[in-house]
């Protein structure tokens, strides 16, 4: 046991932290070791000095003000606790379901529209002729008159078609 450990053991004895056999052993060591006895006396003296040594102080604000701060903080905490514990209102509960459902519905609608708006570019040229056009090169413009009595659909396709095919198509 080194010097430091011995000091801490004597301190523990003074502080009443050693019990039973260990306390007994250290007490008997004190009887025979003047240096340990001196240390014990010094620690006991310091402990004595500290007894009741906490300086009394007065709160540096008025009692009423102090209480008003405390009561306000208590009320604030209680309001917060109630707010967090409160079950969601009917509208909030509905929104919890409606928002994700609406999202899914929008997605489905979008996908459906994408499917249905793909133009069918199979142009029938009679029983023997059929011209396949690719969507990539197709431009479509639609014009409606103000009173909706007439609609013009403008197709612009830049594919080089054989003149005989166009003739067939126009026939």
């Amino acid at each position, binding site marked *: 046991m080194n010097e430091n450990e011995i000091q801490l053991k004597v*301190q523990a004895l003074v502080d009443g932290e050693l019990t039973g056999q260990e306390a007994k052993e250290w007490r008997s060591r004190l009887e025979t070791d003047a240096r340990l006895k001196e240390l014990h006396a010094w620690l006991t003296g310091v402990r004595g000095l500290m007894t009741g040594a*906490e300086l009394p102080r007065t709160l540096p604000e008025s009692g009423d003000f102090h209480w008003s701060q405390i009561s306000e903080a208590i009320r604030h905490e209680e309001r917060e606790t109630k707010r967090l514990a409160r079950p969601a209102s009917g509208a909030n509960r509905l929104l919890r379901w409606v928002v994700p459902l609406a999202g899914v519905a929008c997605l489905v609608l979008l996908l459906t529209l994408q499917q249905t708006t793909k133009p069918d570019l199979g142009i029938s040229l009679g029983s023997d002729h059929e011209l396949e056009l690719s969507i990539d090169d197709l431009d479509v413009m639609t014009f409606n008159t103000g009173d909706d009595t007439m609609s013009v659909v403008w197709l612009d396709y830049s594919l080089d078609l054989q003149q005989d095919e166009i003739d067939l198509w126009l026939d």
Partner: protein
Amino acid sequence: MPEEPAYSSAEEPQLVEWAKAGDMQAFEELVSRHRDRAYVRAYSIMRNESLAVDLSQNAWVKAWQRLEQFHGEASFPTWLSRIVTNLCLDELRRQKRARTDSIEAMEESTGPVENRMEMETLDPIEGLGREELRERIDAALAKLSDKHRTVIVLYEFEQLEYREIAEKMGTSIGTVMSRLFYARKRLASLLKETLKRDGLIE
């Protein structure tokens, strides 16, 4: 109309029971009786007036919220004091003020500093009044590092055991013992300096 309880003359356990039942006036009376004590304990640890006010105030709010947990094993002021102490320790941790200071750095390089410090004897102070001595001890405590002061406050004033201090400070019992020993030596040394300076001892 039911008569209002006589709060100012009520016994403490009665006030606690009323407060537990939600009676804010009973709690106000408890605050009025023990507010200085809560403040003193916070000040002893923090050594900062406004922080001590804030922390003692917070301790009262926590005490109100946890009144159901108070079963009278200790007295109400002791229970409250534990709450104050815990909040102070949390604050010290938050501030990370328990920094490595020069003494610890020295300790790491050359072994425990306790061995190199003289144990200052303070025998001839009988002539000094208790109040004067307390003021000088208080001034010496203010000069200790946060962790050394805290361990002294928890042991000497809060009257906790080594094990309890170790738990609260998140350290080992050995460290608590070592810090306490060093804090006592340093305190005695500072006190001797002050008393010498004031011509109270040779």
